């Protein structure tokens, strides 16, 4: 039957645009992951590469990770001048510049350039086909200086290998103090300043975990607050039949049109008067007073719960609050889950409000901490920025995969007319 019904038939060709569009939509996420697993040297390469490659040089049985090799087309000499401006340095020069222990160098004397000869020592001949590599040090906060090697190309081996070390390195990079970054990660995180640590405690450091804890505190407190307050209001709007509740609901809906930027300046002075600036309170306290969107979602769900359930309880002499607590809340679990998810997501992703109200680095949320790091070190450490961005995204992605159904149903309801 279905085979003949054109409504039930789907063309197989629809997969072609879907796969193409799907690739476009996934592309940035794949690139985010790919970049976060590459070495600092590889991430800056032109043209960009997808797979994380590691290069190694084998010297005296030791396998040392190195930078991508740079090849020499012609023979070069590695020399160390014994005098002159480059005294003691190792320089790579063409063979024609070095004869009989003397290196020809053009140096600046006053405003003029002069060709002079300096005694120099030959360190190594670098034949054509050799490559130049530098030892790859994972952390830029370490104190070691990278060694340099000039070796035949066949001494270099390539392996496809993700650099998981970028993640601890990104965690270290998000730490506020420059000096603190040089400490071993375990020691550094052990000194983390938590939202409940007194902020004048000099023994502690503002680390990635500080931001993580702040984000979680804000998210969890605002989820609890919004669940309690919005469900109370939704109950008052649906289960108690009083004149004016429809008007009130319309007013509540209308407040959705008031954009945050309109409120941010006076709110700033309100929070300043209350002494909340520099604490996390401006971010979670307002959630305890029922937002319009959440009231709307819960009201729509409450309307679908049969009235006689609550009426029966009322006849049995239950108070309204008891009915709300014992009957409505347990029945409304699916809708409460949606509200909790949306609120968590909002708190986790929010940037403008934290940016304005969080004036102290020890109250920064993850999003703000990442932006601060980006604005100070952006444009160079892309592998660490991508790793840090992935750390911000990951909790959301994990949450999504565990609660996919709730998510999709919740968002679907928002489009339903009220």
């Amino acid at each position, binding site marked *: 039957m279905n085979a003949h019904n054109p409504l039930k038939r789907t063309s197989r060709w629809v997969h072609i645009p879907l796969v193409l569009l799907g690739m476009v939509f996934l592309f940035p996420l794949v690139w985010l992951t790919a970049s976060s697993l590459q070495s600092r040297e590889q991430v800056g390469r032109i043209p960009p590469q997808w797979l994380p490659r590691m290069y190694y040089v084998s010297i005296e049985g030791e396998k040392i990770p190195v930078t991508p090799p740079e090849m020499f087309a012609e023979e070069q000499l590695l020399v160390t001048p014994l005098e002159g401006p480059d005294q003691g340095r190792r320089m790579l020069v063409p063979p024609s510049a070095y004869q009989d222990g003397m290196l020809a160098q053009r140096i600046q004397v006053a405003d003029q350039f002069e060709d002079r000869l300096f005694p120099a020592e030959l360190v190594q001949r670098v034949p054509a086909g050799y490559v130049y590599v530098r030892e790859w040090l994972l952390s830029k906060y370490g104190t070691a200086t990278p060694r340099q090697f000039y070796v035949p190309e066949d001494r270099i081996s390539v392996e496809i290998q993700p650099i998981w070390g970028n993640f601890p390195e990104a965690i270290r990079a998000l730490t506020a103090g420059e000096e603190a970054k040089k400490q071993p990660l375990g020691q550094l995180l052990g000194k983390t300043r938590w939202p409940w640590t007194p902020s004048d405690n000099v023994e502690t450091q503002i680390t990635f975990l500080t931001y993580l804890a702040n984000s979680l505190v804000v998210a969890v407190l605002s989820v609890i607050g919004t669940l309690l307050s919005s469900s109370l209001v939704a109950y008052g709007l649906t289960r108690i039949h009083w004149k004016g509740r429809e008007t009130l609901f319309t007013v509540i809906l209308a407040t959705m049109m008031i954009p945050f930027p309109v409120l941010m300046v006076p709110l700033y002075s309100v929070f300043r008067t209350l002494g909340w600036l520099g604490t996390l309170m401006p971010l979670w306290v307002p959630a*305890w007073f029922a937002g319009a969107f959440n009231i709307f979602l819960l009201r729509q769900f409450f309307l679908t719960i049969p009235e006689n359930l609550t009426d029966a309880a009322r006849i049995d002499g239950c108070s309204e609050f008891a009915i709300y607590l014992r009957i409505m809340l347990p029945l409304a679990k699916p809708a409460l889950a949606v509200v909790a998810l949306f609120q968590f997501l909002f708190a986790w992703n929010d940037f403008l409000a934290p940016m304005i109200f969080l004036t102290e680095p020890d109250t920064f949320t993850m999003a703000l901490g990442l932006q601060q790091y980006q604005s100070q070190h952006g444009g160079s450490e892309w592998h660490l920025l991508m790793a840090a961005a992935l750390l911000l995204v990951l909790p959301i992605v994990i949450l999504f995969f565990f609660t996919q159904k709730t998510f999709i149903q919740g968002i679907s309801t928002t489009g339903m007319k009220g």
Partner: protein
Amino acid sequence: MIAHRRLTGLLFCLPWFIGFGVFMLFPMLAALYYSLSDYSVLLPPVFIGLENYRELASDALFWKSLSNTLYYAIGAVTLSLMTSLTLALLLNSRVRGMAFYRTVFFLPSLMPVVAGSILWMWMYTGDGGIINTALAYVGIEGPAWLADPDFAKSALILMAVWGAGHAMVILLAGLQDIPEHLYEAALLDGAGWWHRMVYVTLPMITPVVYFNLIIGIIGSLQVFTQAFIMTGSTGAPERSTLFYVLRLFNVAFEDLRMGYACAMAWILFVIILGLTIIMHKFSARWVHYERS
């Protein structure tokens, strides 16, 4: 009894009343008063009448930020809506693996804006960025994107389209709510694919499109974070990404001219209110509501 019930009802709504009063109504009215004052937070506001509004009328940066924002809003809302509608229609055709595709398109819309902005900045790198490398692969020489005043806004619009998955989920739910019998009736009348689309599908989801349109416009008029991170608080290059809220932020928290910023805030509110009312008036012409 009725009075008692009203009292209980109001009591349940108390959290909203307090929140509305303290975190909305009071700030709105305070903003109105500040907008008529010279106010820098540190000193009490001094009433100056309409001076702030008068100054705004001749403030080139104000007009620049307004036109940038309208350009962005029109581009982002139109393209996102077209993309999300296309995706929803494709997915609604009873395609196998629909849940998988839906996840793929929806996932990017969950990205925290901060992470998304940093990622797109990296992709938009003019020299050796992944997007320009991909374009070069098909023989197109890509622009400098965020560094080019002619392309910076378009770059941000493209990034907004990436988040179209959210609207797609809402539209898809709307499409799946269309009663089957409408299609069967159309089929009996000999309507082909195109006619079913134009006379059944599209009219039936106009309420959902209308909802997404309103949400999209209100949201994109407030664009801030992307620009703040990707092109800086000055709206570089050549102020081509100086958006309204970015300008408002600078005036309030960098110049510390809170009164002037509040005047901007109220104008934004009036613009959003006006647009919503206009769209509501016009909606009767194209939005189709089933009588139930």
